[in-house]
């Protein structure tokens, strides 16, 4: 049984931790809002590009980034957070990523985020590129360069299929094929369109850009999901601290009452003895 004073000290500690959790929750919800704004800002370009790709792909077109090949070597791009304290966010995505990487021998990987990068390094997976840390604000330029590198590796035949695994904001863990590019079927093809300078050349410009937005928007979504996970983890922790404080206060009162009862007993006992 802890002494009254020990319990009091423990209550103070829990209260302090609770305050930290509450602060982290507030900070994360602000970061979440900013991350959502960035998703919104990137959406018009990504949507418009996807629409053009979808419509172009309705025609009979060929391009090295669309080419289906037998998979001799697979590639996996996997996104995690840099930091923990986000509930099961990292654990889940890392576990799924490992499953994906191990599904094929000698898979070439591109870990994004410190947790993913550290895990892959420890397990000795071959990496094409590593982005660690992701940082607070993902820059389009960084991921455009990364996407270009992945595209080049695909065209060079280093990998024959590339999958992207990440936590999509408001959805959960998503595995998406990055390469070869599979355009979503569009409603109308560009049969009557004029192409300046020619359909092939447009495609050559278009597909690498499409790849860039796929990678960039995935990172934006993963960052938003991370902050959302942290908000809920921290608000849960705050509630748990409340429960704990309630329990400890009860213990404290009991222990205090026991001390008083004990002292009373002593006094009464002493008085009786003196009589």
């Amino acid at each position, binding site marked *: 049984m802890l002494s009254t004073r020990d319990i009091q000290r423990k209550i103070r500690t829990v209260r302090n931790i609770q305050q930290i959790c509450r602060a982290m929750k507030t900070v994360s919800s602000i970061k979440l809002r900013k991350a959502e704004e960035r998703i919104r800002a990137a959406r*018009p*370009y990504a949507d*418009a590009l996807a629409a*053009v790709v979808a419509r172009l792909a309705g025609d009979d077109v060929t391009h090295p980034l669309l080419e289906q090949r037998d998979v001799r070597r697979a590639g996996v791009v996997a996104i995690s957070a840099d930091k923990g304290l986000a509930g099961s966010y990292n654990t889940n995505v890392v576990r799924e990523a490992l499953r994906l990487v191990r599904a094929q021998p000698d898979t070439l990987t591109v870990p994004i985020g410190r947790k993913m990068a550290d895990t892959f390094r420890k397990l000795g997976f071959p990496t094409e590129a590593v982005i660690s840390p992701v940082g607070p604000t993902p820059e389009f330029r960084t991921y455009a360069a990364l996407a270009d590198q992945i595209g080049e590796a695909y065209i060079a035949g280093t990998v024959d299929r590339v999958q992207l695994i990440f936590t999509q904001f408001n959805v959960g863990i998503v595995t998406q094929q990055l390469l070869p590019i599979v355009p979503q079927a569009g409603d109308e093809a560009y049969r009557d369109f004029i192409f*300046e300078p020619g359909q092939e050349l*447009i495609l050559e*410009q278009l597909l690498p*850009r499409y790849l860039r937005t796929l990678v*960039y928007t995935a990172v934006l979504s993963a960052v938003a999901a991370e902050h959302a996970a942290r908000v809920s983890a921290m608000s849960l922790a705050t509630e748990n601290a409340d429960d704990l404080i309630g329990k400890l206060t009860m213990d404290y009162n009991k222990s205090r009452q026991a001390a008083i009862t004990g002292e009373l007993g002593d006094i009464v006992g002493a008085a009786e003895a003196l009589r």
Partner: protein
Amino acid sequence: MAHPIDVEIVAADRKVFSGTAGSVTVPGIDGYFGVLAGHAPLISALAIGIVELRAHEAGVPQLFAVAGGFVEVTPEKVTILADAAEAPAEIDAERARLAAERAEERLRAPEPGIDVTRAQASLLRALNRLRLIGQYGK
């Protein structure tokens, strides 16, 4: 210019402009071209240059510097998907000037390992931005 046409200019990480215009002039890869409402459907690659939006023929044009990307034209709408796009107010003159100087320096004395094409593109982008804000010959 009876009908206005919808115009949207988007860069990879943000929407730059959304609205309508009487006419749009776009720097296509094979030269500038104008678009009015009812234009034939077209997809063109973009060069580095300046997009001009005019409410009507005599109007003061609204300008944007763009660098690379695409334009998609349908009879009702022009969508400009630019690698980079800025209105004059968004351009950092100092930064553009520095970028231009750096690129010129690289091109003047090309060291081995310097990507000349990239330096040229970088110079063109910087000069384009400076031209838009009128700090470099018209």
